[in-house]
């Protein structure tokens, strides 16, 4: 593997933190003497903006090929590889290399992992038979000329950005590269969402190599959205051509940008044009895009029901087996849904279940039997894992509500709502405090439904949480997913509520179905998240007088970035108990449930 390491890359600067974006980078010119395919003559990608763009917090670019490769066409593998071998490999800086000429030695000391993946991707790139030319400018990249501090920061950042977790479900997913001899990327992507892995498997070699290349750009195994080249490629392949809100916050560049659902009429008109896409799936995708469907359970159920319809209408094309073809069809549906809105973890688990069921179909079944079996499996999944599970959770959690309690909830979780209504039906006397936050204001819907049923409620925003917490006796929260180290991945703001509750010694109960548990481990809210609409931050609906951010000059807009995160990670220390359909468990027992019961439904 060492021989294939190519280090001759134009380093790409990744700016993190506060920086002033400046004039577009000057091309350093084809100073690379290097290993690139001989017929490449475009200047190296990205990099080297004027040195005056340097700012103290900039992180030096990792040296890798990606950007050059982006510029290349029809790369020739062998010579490139051979050439690559001669050049500085991981960790060793060859001063004679003059990629940037001026770069100081430590800049090349980037984590090994990143380099090898770089090489792999570059190799994969080489194998592309037909690559398109990619945009060669790295957005806002600044070239870092201040050596010393950066390698550490780069390495640290990349270590941070390289969680052991799975690939991000985003855009055209990272390839699991099953057939690729390269071990590293596949190891890293070992547990990617099945969607992406299966999607990858049917893609061509060229595509896979493109993804490898993309991987190389951004060391973390997830799909990174920083690279214009990859993004351009994804756009070409996308079914929906939705405008995306440009994400300019550097720290969150790796997350999929928010899709503006502004073209609904246009999209609706395409309804009958898409022959490969089943209309039910298309409809569900549009609902996600517009935000009409939100909430883990709702999205999962809608998706599964759309798949059910698609399966019912499916007929195996001649010369193909049902199992493989149906799997690939489901994967294409999933890629479409991902384009509309990144998958939630509950959806990912459901997809994994479905693909597993398809794969386990006995070959002797006729097509109609197979389809019927699959539809009934889906029904069973929805019933057992969601509907009945919710009932069990409600039963358990209602025992924790006593007369005279003051219960606090945040946002709008369907399970928590069910619990409160059930306890009210049982005749328990309690007060509810609904905490809400901008910009989504989901709590208002919950409040309305609770008040209609006759519960006494208090409504407040999250900035008053420490004011109200001393009155509260229990906190009930929902979750989008619970990870293996007990971390709760839920709507943004949940972590704050849990932390304040912990400080006031109020028990925090998380109510979550077991199918949402995941083996992944997440330590912060940055490496895996979802971006929302940044414009929603600046505007308050119904209050046109709050328009301080409306008339900014271009110059001002350069300095101001909007960040709208959708999810956050709550550490397990703040959580008292997790109520699942397997009973009430402490946060430390989540991996036990995953271990004992994850196999069960996959193997049915």
């Amino acid at each position, binding site marked *: 593997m060492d021989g294939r390491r190519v280090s001759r890359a134009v380093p790409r600067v990744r700016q993190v933190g506060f920086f002033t974006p400046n004039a577009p980078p000057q091309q350093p010119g084809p100073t690379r003497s290097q290993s690139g395919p001989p017929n490449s003559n475009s200047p190296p990608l990205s990099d080297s903006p004027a040195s005056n763009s340097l700012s103290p917090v900039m992180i030096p670019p990792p040296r890798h090929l990606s950007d050059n490769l982006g510029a290349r066409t029809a790369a020739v593998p062998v010579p490139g590889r051979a050439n690559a071998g001669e050049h500085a490999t991981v960790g060793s800086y060859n001063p004679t290399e003059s990629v940037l000429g001026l770069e100081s030695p430590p800049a090349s000391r980037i984590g090994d992992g990143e380099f090898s993946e770089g090489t792999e991707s570059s190799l994969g790139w080489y194998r592309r038979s037909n690559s398109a030319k990619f945009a060669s400018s790295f957005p806002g990249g600044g070239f870092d000329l201040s050596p010393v501090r950066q390698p550490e920061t780069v390495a640290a950042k990349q270590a941070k950005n390289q969680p052991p977790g799975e690939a991000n479900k985003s855009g055209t997913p990272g390839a699991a590269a099953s057939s690729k001899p390269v071990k590293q990327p596949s190891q890293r992507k070992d547990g990617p969402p099945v969607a992406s892995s299966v999607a990858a498997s049917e893609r061509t070699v060229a595509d896979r190599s493109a993804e490898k290349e993309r991987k190389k750009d951004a060391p973390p195994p997830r799909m990174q959205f920083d690279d214009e080249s990859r993004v351009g490629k994804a756009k070409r392949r996308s079914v929906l051509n939705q405008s995306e809100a440009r994400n300019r916050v550097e720290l969150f560049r790796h997350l999929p940008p928010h899709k503006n659902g502004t073209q609904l009429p246009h999209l609706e008109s395409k309804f009958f044009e898409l022959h490969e896409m089943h209309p039910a799936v298309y409809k569900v995708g549009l609902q996600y895009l517009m935000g009409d469907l939100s909430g883990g359970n709702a999205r999962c159920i809608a998706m599964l029901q759309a798949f059910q319809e698609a399966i019912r209408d499916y007929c195996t094309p001649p010369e193909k087996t049902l199992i493989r073809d149906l799997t690939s069809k489901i994967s294409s549906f999933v890629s479409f849904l991902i384009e509309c809105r990144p998958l939630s973890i509950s959806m990912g688990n459901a997809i994994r279940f479905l693909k597993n069921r398809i794969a386990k179909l006995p070959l002797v079944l006729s097509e109609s039997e197979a389809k019927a079996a699959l539809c009934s499996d889906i029904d069973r999944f929805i019933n057992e894992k969601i509907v009945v599970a919710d009932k069990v959770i409600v039963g358990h959690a209602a025992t924790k509500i006593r007369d005279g309690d003051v219960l606090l909830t945040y946002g709008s979780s369907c399970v928590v709502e069910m619990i409160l209504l059930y306890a009210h039906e049982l005749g328990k006397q309690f007060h509810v405090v609904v905490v809400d936050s901008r910009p989504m204001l989901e709590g208002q819907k919950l409040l309305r439904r609770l008040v209609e049923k006759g519960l006494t409620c208090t409504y407040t925003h999250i900035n008053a949480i420490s004011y109200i917490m001393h009155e509260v006796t229990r906190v009930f929260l929902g979750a989008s997913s619970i990870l293996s180290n007990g971390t709760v991945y839920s709507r943004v703001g949940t972590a704050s509520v849990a932390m304040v509750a912990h400080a006031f010694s109020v*028990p925090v109960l998380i109510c979550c179905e077991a199918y949402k548990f995941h083996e992944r481990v997440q330590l912060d809210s940055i490496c895996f998240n979802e971006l929302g609409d940044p414009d929603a931050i600046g505007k308050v609906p119904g209050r046109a007088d709050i328009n301080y951010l409306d008339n900014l000059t271009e110059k001002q807009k350069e300095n101001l970035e909007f960040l709208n995160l959708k999810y956050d990670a709550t550490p397990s220390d703040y959580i008292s108990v997790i109520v699942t359909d397997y*009973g009430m468990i402490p946060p*430390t027992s989540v991996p036990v449930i995953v271990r*004992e019961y994850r196999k069960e439904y996959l193997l049915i």
Partner: protein
Amino acid sequence: MWWRSPSFILDRQQQQEQNDSVPPESLFLTSAAPSMADSLQNPKSNISAYYQTRAAHHGVVTSDWLAQAQAAVGRHSDDDDSSESDGRAVPTVGGDGVSGKAFSVIEEFNNWRKQPDLAEAVAAIRALAAVIRASQATTMMELEIELKKASDSLKSWDTTSISLTAGCDLFMRYVTRTSALEYEDFNSAKSRLIERAEKFGEISCKARRIIAMLSQDFIFDGCTILVHGFSRVVLEVLKTAAQNKKLFRVFCTEGRPDRTGLRLSNELAKLDVPVKLLIDSAVAYTMDEVDMVFVGADGVVESGGIINMMGTYQIALVAHGMNKPVYVAAESYKFARLYPLDQKDMAPALRPIDFGVPIPSKVEVETSARDYTPPQYLTLLFTDLGVLTPSVVSDELIQLYL
């Protein structure tokens, strides 16, 4: 906290306007007063039979009481033997019907329970074994149903005893599992169940020995151990350590109102272990001399915390604050599927406290006999399954019950 908040005061005012009988001055106590007043007037209503018995087992008695008790015990043990056999014989008398059987289960259980050395759960299981023995069912399903009824009646008879509930659940679980075994002969299946139930009694004693053995590594020469409450398991641990010629000393808390400390210090003095008695309030004062805290448990809950005699939480808090380890010795059949979120989240187990002087009727007394210690204050659990950290309890429970 709720009581001090404006919302609470508003609520109370609304209630007062409705009731008009509650004097406004006792604003903060009124919510508690009605319930407590009730319990004072009817002290028998929520008395926990479990804790009564424990008090009877472990309470220290004055010498003349002792004389009387011994005389009574002499008589009682004869009764015990005869009533045990009666207990077994009675159900076989035909025509008693289900209610008769259920009643005899409780009697049976009581008989077993009075033996001081037998754990509650084991007594329950022995009683259920008696039910099987006496059962006239002809199929496994019938037998299971009878057992379920007996187990439910036992549980409802004393809702406060956690090990009783846990023991019954364990036995039922075992029965439902083994009923999957194919036995040609129903009688052989039945006898196998009885045999297993009998073995369970031995398991209890063996469990204590295993725990004692496991904990020997943690008691080093020259250490000072603080013990709270009278746990037979902890006593076994200390006995074994003394037999292994370890040099250690023990601080016993007085353990009011049961005065368990006095009893324990008696036992330890017989073993020639240096014992020092403390009043309950002196725990923090002496905590820096202490190397470790050893307690038993009435029940180990799913979060990994324990439910034990009142005062355990306090001691665990002090120990945690001073960085002293808290070790819990508990058999695995005490693992219960409960999850208390705070002190009041459990079924109340009250036990009247005798202060020795008459208390005016307006004064309430906190009579709860037990408290809940959350898992973050416990260091290790010594069980017959091994030395566990609190988070493993849930793992074991999931494997046992799910």
